[in-house]
């Protein structure tokens, strides 16, 4: 019995240490080098810093190019906020109707949306369409693209969750004389809160970390998003690893905070969403 306990404790320690070694080392490397002086960081080692330059490095990363990072952060937050808000409203409605109606229309819409889970977007024709309606290179256009690309996954989450809500609720409300929009807004929407919060977190992470779409649909320094800024810094700071890493940490902090508070919801949401797809 004691022997088994010792064995289990040993397994505990081995698993923890090896996961820290594999997944923690690159992060430790990132953090420790963001504390070093430029010369020290250039050695790219995981040694303890000779001198600490935390305040200096982070201030420099912040203030570089007239506080570009703050503007970019603002843009990213704006895009993330409105994309997620739009996605939740639009996909909650769509998922609700697709799950309930079993006619041809909902089947076609469902089929199109599922295809969107697999097929990558056609980039240049999207730019062409955006130019045609005058939303190319605008934050509004970027939000619409993020919504369009997020619709398949988010709708699928809501559709899956609707399956666990009994139809009788709506039928009873209809008999009581409730209109169809009120049924959704007052009765169904509050029931969707758990899946909505999962969708909010997953989509916020996706949109905030998105690099490819802003690269194509929101080029130019004026509206740069945080990931584009990071990419530009990579070229500019190719020798100033301390600043580059300080930048990475600054833009990862929001995700870290999110993860600390919603750890379980994020992980379970990813697993559930993926399996239902």
């Amino acid at each position: 019995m004691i022997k088994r306990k010792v064995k289990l404790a040993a397994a505990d320690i081995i698993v923890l240490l090896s996961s820290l070694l594999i997944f923690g080392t690159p992060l430790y490397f990132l953090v420790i080098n963001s504390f070093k002086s430029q010369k020290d960081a250039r050695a790219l080692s995981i040694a303890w810093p000779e001198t600490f330059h935390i305040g200096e490095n982070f201030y420099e990363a912040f203030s570089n190019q007239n506080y570009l990072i703050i503007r970019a952060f603002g843009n990213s937050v704006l895009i993330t906020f409105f994309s997620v808000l739009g996605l939740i409203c639009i996909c909650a409605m769509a998922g609700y109707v697709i799950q309930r109606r079993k006619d041809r229309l909902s089947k076609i819409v469902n089929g199109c949306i599922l295809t969107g889970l697999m097929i990558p977007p056609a980039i240049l024709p999207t730019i062409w369409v955006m130019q045609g309606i005058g939303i190319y290179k605008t934050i509004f256009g970027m939000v619409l693209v993020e919504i369009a690309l997020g619709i398949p996954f988010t709708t699928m989450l809501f559709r899956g969750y609707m399956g666990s809500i009994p139809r009788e609720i709506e039928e009873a409300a209809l008999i009581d004389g409730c209109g169809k929009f009120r049924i959704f807004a007052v009765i169904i929407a509050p029931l969707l809160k758990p899946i909505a919060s999962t969708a909010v977190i997953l989509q916020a992470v996706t949109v905030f970390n998105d690099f490819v779409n802003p690269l194509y649909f929101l080029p130019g320094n004026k509206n740069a998003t945080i990931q584009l800024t990071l990419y530009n810094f990579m070229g500019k700071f190719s020798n100033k690893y301390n600043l580059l890493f300080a930048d990475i940490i600054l833009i990862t902090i929001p995700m870290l905070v999110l993860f600390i508070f919603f750890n379980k919801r994020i992980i379970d949401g990813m697993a559930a969403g993926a399996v239902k797809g």
Partner: protein
Amino acid sequence: MKKKTKTIYSAWFLAPAVIIFGLLFIIPTVISLFFSMTVWDLSSFRWVGLQNFIDFFSEYSLRIGIKNTFIYAAATCVLKVVIGLLFAVILTSKIRTKNLVRSIIFFPNLISTVAVGIIFSALMHPSKGLFNEVLGFLGIGGINWLGDRSIALYSVIMTDVWKGVGVATVIYIAGISAIPKDYYEAASLDGATSVKQFFTITIPLCRSSINSVIILAFIGGMRTFDLIWSMTGGGPGFATDTIASVIYKQYAAGFYGLSTAGNVIMFLLIAVIAFPLFNYLTSKEVEV
């Protein structure tokens, strides 16, 4: 009943999704078929037929993207399927630190891909990177991780697996936890070893999780762009170009028709491989 369905579940609820998705996804996808056969600059176009596709398959710098995409998708998919399963089996055992370890494994998913690319490029630095220092300590000569044509693609693949294996792991954990414990008890009473239990109970019963991981990893691999772009930019030479990076390069160079043709090739490949694969895999699933 039918009438009631229509009155409650109004088709208008679908309208916003259909309009936005149609306008910015379906329409571009459909017209890409047309523009892939033109030379265009967003305002005017000239019809060239299948010339763009012919170029794509005949020019080395473009064709290699297709080959690399396959290697990338297949390798990341296999590695995530296998390593993720291994981690999940460990993390569903009696280990007490499993929640902590699960979070540690999962966290890289929340770091942006560009940031991961930057971190690993630094770790893979040929002369002073940590990877080569460890190898040197073990007495093995340094490897030029991102500068050697024959290795660079695999270095990026390794980074992708490091970042993405957490999702595979949590999908598996969800699948394995759903398997009733009595199956294992009955099997061990009958004298089945834990290895045998793994192959005869765990694998068949978490089939749907395995399928999800395969599909997700494969499609993600086929579309990969940001990691490649931030680590190697497609280089050295064209050694790590994928279809998505070729699409971007042609776009940046102003060859919009060629770029669109690349896009069409990418969805045709995904459609030709992923849909049948998906149908095949789901047909083999069993209910727990």
